[in-house]
């Protein structure tokens, strides 16, 4: 089996938002919509404050709350763990946006553009009317993955089979790959580092892991 997952090394992320920009360019999302975003968190109290940058987005959960509640079956989970939305099936009820414990979904009801004068040439070319009035979110660049895999490439290793955010990360903080493959980069990272998953109490089994400390002999799961 294959289980695609994302790993973010919080020690490396510098909050540059390059992944956010790369995602926007790759997926042509409307202004105000970020499928991949980086949270800016402050922990502690002045003067003893630490700043942490946390990349987030759809966590492609094992048991996605969005898929469970979706009345139209537009939201589905593939066998490789990627959660998808059928834009031609979605009715835009918004239930999935409320079920998602990660604020990962948006609904854009009318087209908006970067500039008040109207759409740029690029925006015109990339505009997809199917995206209006339906739920949308990070897809792990599923089209890129599928195309790459069909060509015999390995997601997370070959850029042509890897999500745009991972390819663009200037710090090498983001990694992508197959969790079920013990030799994959993500399996290796999780074996060698302490990690947690966010909002695990929601019980959805997120497929997005955060590294926070180096290797240890026995992995301790940390639950928020």
């Amino acid at each position: 089996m294959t289980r695609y997952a994302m790993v973010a090394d919080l020690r490396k992320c510098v909050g540059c938002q390059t992944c956010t920009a790369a995602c926007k360019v790759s997926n042509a999302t409307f202004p105000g919509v970020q499928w991949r975003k980086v949270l800016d968190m402050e922990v502690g109290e002045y003067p003893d404050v630490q700043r942490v940058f946390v990349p987030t987005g759809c966590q492609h959960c094992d048991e996605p709350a969005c898929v469970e509640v979706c009345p139209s079956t537009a939201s589905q989970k593939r066998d490789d763990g990627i959660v998808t939305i059928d834009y031609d099936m979605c009715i835009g009820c918004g239930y999935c946006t409320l079920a998602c414990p990660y604020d990962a979904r948006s609904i854009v009801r009318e087209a908006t553009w970067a500039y008040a004068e109207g759409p740029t040439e690029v925006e015109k070319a990339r505009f997809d009317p199917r995206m209006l009035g339906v739920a949308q979110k990070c897809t792990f660049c599923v089209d890129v993955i599928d195309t790459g895999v069909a060509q015999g490439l390995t997601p997370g290793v070959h850029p042509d089979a890897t999500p745009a955010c991972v390819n663009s990360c200037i710090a090498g903080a983001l990694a992508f790959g197959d969790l079920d493959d013990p030799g994959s980069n993500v399996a290796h990272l999780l074996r060698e580092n302490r990690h947690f998953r966010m909002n695990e109490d929601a019980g959805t089994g997120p497929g997005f892991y955060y590294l926070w400390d180096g290797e240890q002999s026995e992995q301790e799961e940390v639950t928020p």
Partner: protein
Amino acid sequence: MSTGAAGYTPHPRLQSSWDLRAASNFIGGGVGTGLVLTATVVAAFGGLWMPGLLLGLACVAFGLSMVFLELGRPWRAVNVFFHPRTSWMTREGVLSLPLFAAGAGAVAVAWFYGTVAAAPLLALAGLCAAGFLYCQAHILHRARGIPAWSESTLRWVMVATGLTEGVGVFLAITAFAQSAPRALALEVALAVLLAARAGLWLGYARRLRARGAPTRSMRAIDALGARFLWFGHALPAVLLVAGWLVWPFAVELVTAAGLVAAAAGWYAKLMIITRAAASRGFAIPQTPTRGRSASRAGARPGWGGGAS
């Protein structure tokens, strides 16, 4: 205009996907199914049931039509029926079909052949109404991104308030048509439901606080709680008792009690859906180690104790 995720803050945010239109479905569905259930029971005892049933069906239809207006792709609304295996929204939609069919059928049969002949259809309408109300309660419960909704005891608050609203409005409908002794059973039922709803509400607020919820939600729940208990429970209870004691104005007082109890339920649902619905936000259990700085306990911003 877009709704849903935006911004870079880890704090819980107020949901913007469901507004007054979605709240209207819970309001119309609650009072509507409450009316249908009450009409079914009243019919079994030979009371006047038809106006209550018809109004109940109209309320459910009103709620569903308001949801239709909120859909991003309303002309695909039929797709709502595609996922009965796990989606409570689908189950709600599926149950609405036999509810309307049985309700309308009961009215038609009773019109031509009498209430006794309509009894099976009335019973079916009552069952569907109960199921519809139960589905609505679960719709909120399964929204795992909103802690104030996913707290399991809210389901029973939703059921209790639907029944209370139904009995309250039914009392108002029949108050002027029924003699006082006949309405007494409904009045007692309203008193019992008011007590149950108040108890369930207190339990919900207590459990939500104990389990933890975004500060924003707790503030809204606390503000609502005081108003809900005093104006939605104490006031109608006083009006009911006054109706029992001040005989010349009994009908007016009992009618007011029913309507106030119902209106309080509508207001509570509106507030729960549009004001108390903060998302989970984001939490990290540990900060990362960086260079010589060690990891420390993380934060859950916007949850009271967390860093903000």
